[in-house]
C-alpha cells in the first residue's frame, strides 16, 4: 500500500468522487440529516425551557445529541444504500485497497456531519441566543465528528449485514461513543461564553478526544477488512 502511494491516492480519489457523485444525484442523505437536525433542535426548544440563563448550560448537550442522531442517519445510509442497490459486491470486486473504501466512506460521513453542523450551529446560536468562541468550538466539533464517524463507519459496515440494521447501529455505536459525547459536550461548553462566567479549560478533554480519534481510527482501518470481507 505504501509502496504504491500514487496508485492508492488515485483509488482514494476515485472512491471519493463516487461518493460525492452518488450523493449529489440522490441528495437523500445530506438533506435528510440536515432537516432532521434542525427538527431536533426545534423539538429540544419545546422540550426544555431554554431561556438565556439556562441555554448556555443546556446547549452543548442539545447540540451533541442532535449531531449524534444526524450522524446516525448518515452512517445508517452509507452502507445500506450500497446494499439496497447491490453495489457493495461490485465495490468489493473492484481492485482497490479495502482501507481506501473505508477512508472514502469515512470522508463522506464526516462531510455530511460537517454540513449538518454548519447549518445547525448558527441555527442554535440564533435559537438559544449564545455567544461562542469560534475556533475552539470548531476544534471541538472537528475532533468529535472524526471520533464519531471513525468507529461509526466500521460499525455501519457491520450492521448493514444484520437483520436489525438501522435499529442495531445506534445500540452498538452509542455505548462506544460515551467518551466522545462526554468530551465534546465538555469542550463545547468551554467554547460557549457565559456572560460573567469564567472561561473553562477544555485542554484535557480535547486531548482525550484526539487520543480516542487516533486509537479508534487505527483500529477501524485494521478491522475494516473483517467487517466487509465475504468468506
Amino acid at each position, binding site marked *: 500500500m505504501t509502496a504504491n502511494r500514487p496508485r492508492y491516492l488515485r483509488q482514494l480519489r476515485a472512491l471519493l468522487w463516487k461518493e460525492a457523485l452518488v450523493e449529489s444525484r440522490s441528495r437523500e442523505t445530506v438533506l435528510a440529516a440536515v432537516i432532521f437536525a434542525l427538527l431536533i433542535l426545534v423539538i429540544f426548544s419545546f422540550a426544555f425551557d431554554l431561556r438565556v440563563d439556562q441555554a448556555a448550560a443546556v446547549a452543548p448537550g442539545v447540540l451533541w445529541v442532535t449531531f449524534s442522531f444526524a450522524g446516525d442517519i448518515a452512517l445508517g445510509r452509507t452502507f445500506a444504500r450500497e446494499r439496497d442497490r447491490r453495489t457493495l459486491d461490485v465495490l468489493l470486486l473492484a481492485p482497490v485497497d479495502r482501507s481506501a473504501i473505508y477512508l472514502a466512506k469515512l470522508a463522506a460521513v464526516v462531510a455530511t456531519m460537517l454540513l449538518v453542523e454548519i447549518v445547525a450551529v448558527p441555527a442554535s446560536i440564533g435559537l438559544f441566543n449564545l455567544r461562542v468562541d469560534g475556533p475552539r468550538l470548531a476544534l471541538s466539533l472537528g475532533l468529535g465528528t472524526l471520533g464519531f464517524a471513525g468507529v461509526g463507519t466500521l460499525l455501519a459496515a457491520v450492521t448493514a449485514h444484520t437483520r436489525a440494521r438501522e435499529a442495531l447501529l445506534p445500540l452498538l455505536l452509542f455505548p462506544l461513543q460515551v467518551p466522545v459525547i462526554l468530551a465534546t459536550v*465538555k469542550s463545547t461548553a468551554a467554547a460557549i461564553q457565559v456572560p460573567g462566567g469564567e472561561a473553562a479549560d477544555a485542554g484535557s478533554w480535547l486531548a482525550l478526544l484526539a487520543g480516542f480519534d487516533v486509537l*479508534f481510527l487505527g483500529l477501524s482501518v485494521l478491522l475494516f477488512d473483517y467487517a466487509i470481507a465475504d468468506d
Partner: protein
Amino acid sequence: MLRADSEELERGVTTRALGIGSLLLLVVSTYGTFFLARPDRVQGDAARIVYFHVPMAWVAFLAFFVVFIAGIAYLRTRKAIWDHVGRASAEVGVLFTTLVLVTGSIWGFPIWGTWWSWDPKLTTTLILWFLYLGYLMVRAYAEPPRGPRYAALLGILGFADVPIVYLSSVWWRTLHPAPVIGPLAAQQPSASIVWLLLLSLAAFTLFYAFLVAVRVRIEQVGAGLRSQGEVPSYADAPIGSPAPHGGAARI
C-alpha cells in the same frame, strides 16, 4: 452420534471437576460471608454484600477480557473454538455485569441513600453492560457466516473502549464534585476480610470457568448437530426464508 473418545471423556471430567470445585468453594465462602464475617462497624450487615459484589465484578471484567482475547484469536486463526469461547464468555459476562449492577444498587440504597450514582466505576460498568448486550445482539442478528467475525470485531472494539470510558467518567465526575463515597477504601481492611474476599474471588472465578466450559460444550454440540442438519435454526436461515417448523421438537 458424538464420539466418546478419550478427549471427550477428559473434557467431561475437567468440567465436572470445575463444577464440583466451584460449588464447594461457593458454599464455604457463602458460609463465611453470613456466619464468620462480623458486621461492619459503620455499615452493619450491608457490608457483607462485598463478598459477592466484588468477585462478580471481577468475573465480569475477566469475562470481557477473555472475549477480547478470543476475538483476536478468532480473527487470526478462524478456529470455531475461539468463537465459542468468546460467545460463552460474553454471555456469562453480561449475566455477571447485571448481577454487579443489581447487588451494587441493593448495597447503595441503605449506604448511599440512593440506588444509583454516576460514580466512574458504576458508569463504566453500565456502559460495559450496554456494549456487550450489543455484542450478543449482533451475534443473534448477523447474517449466517458473518456473526462470529462481527462478534470478534466488537469484542476488540469494546474492550479497547473500556479504559477511555473509565478515564472520561473520572474526569466528568471530578469536574462535578459528587458526595464522598467509597467507605471500604477509607478504612484498613482486617486480614480475615481479605482472606474471605480472596476465597470468594477464587470461588467465583472457578464458577465462571465452569459456566464457560458448559456453554462452550453446548455451543459445540449445537454446531455439530447443525452441520448434520438435525436442528434447523432460524438464526442460520437466510433472510426472507420462512421460519423452520417444529425446530425445537426435533432435538
